């Protein structure tokens, strides 16, 4: 898994209390690429962690990578998780305690949702609003 993108090393020592984002994908490349794309719009203020691929680098989702992502992304304001396909949802749900108030699993298109969530998180809104922004991305038509 990649290091968090969008946060310069110097700022990691003093994390701002913005909502963090974890991108859970079956593919490490897809998660990392989406994280860097979304990171472009954050002005370097949002921690976006890519949790893609299995532990041995194959296609699939890794509970350990998701757990690590949650630790890295949480700076006190909570974390919004975006999954790519259904089994990523299962991995996340199996991990989370029944109702962890510091984590929201958002139902959103992966790329558009990541960008929308990042914009919202950069604006400093709370995790519910970040998740809502990601889910509103369903309605962002390209044509």
């Amino acid at each position, binding site marked *: 898994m990649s290091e968090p993108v969008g946060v310069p090393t110097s700022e990691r020592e003093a994390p701002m209390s913005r909502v963090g984002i974890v991108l859970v994908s079956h593919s490490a490349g897809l998660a990392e690429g989406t994280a860097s794309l979304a990171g472009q719009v954050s002005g370097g203020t949002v921690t976006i962690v890519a949790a893609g691929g299995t532990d041995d680098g194959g296609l*699939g989702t890794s509970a*350990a990578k998701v757990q690590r992502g949650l630790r890295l992304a949480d700076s006190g304001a909570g974390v919004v998780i975006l999954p790519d396909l259904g089994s990523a949802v299962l991995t996340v749900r*199996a991990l989370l305690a029944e109702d962890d108030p510091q984590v929201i699993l958002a139902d959103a298109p992966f790329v558009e949702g990541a960008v929308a969530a990042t914009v919202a998180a950069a604006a400093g809104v709370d995790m519910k609003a970040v998740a809502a922004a990601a889910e509103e991305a369903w309605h962002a038509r390209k044509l």
Partner: protein
Amino acid sequence: MDAEVFRAWIVSSARTIEASRDHLTQLDAAIGDADHGINLARGFAAVLGAQEFGKASSPGAVLTVTGSTLISKVGGASGPLYGVAFRRAGKALGDDADPGLHALSAALDAALAGVQQLGAAREGDKTMVDALAPATRAFSKAVAEGASRDGALAALAEAAEAGAAATISMQALKGRASYLGPRSVGHEDPGAASTALILAALRDAARAAS
């Protein structure tokens, strides 16, 4: 059935999944992402290799460590789904050192409820639920009618196998196969197939112990 029987069940499941690895993966290649046999075989191998698995002193503990290991070691949907199933069953059995048929029936119901809560699949969606749900029903019916342990477990395994076979004519409404729409018809669901194998392993482990 004590911890040794439950441990033997998991060991036997690992063997049967390993032996059917290519078959399960081929089923998954037809309608999914071609990793079911590989993932599940790797997950069960990790369970057998886990220190806590050998040390677990109650049936509930055996199933709980099995579930937790599957969640962390299987990179596909089957990891969380089987993981939750085994963990819920383990939790339902609690510390009971030698649970009877009614306790086992309740544990199977808890496993099914966990799978359905996690995956939101219903019967007829062409998933593992189509094997697990009829199997748990057949087991609790057999128990209620006073069947012997071996008789009830035979009913469980038989219903799971029939349920898995019935998925062939279904159209997938959940999981990766649902993207195929009507083209998913005509193939057995790999998760239902592996569920039937695992429940047959339970029947066989109990028989071998008696």
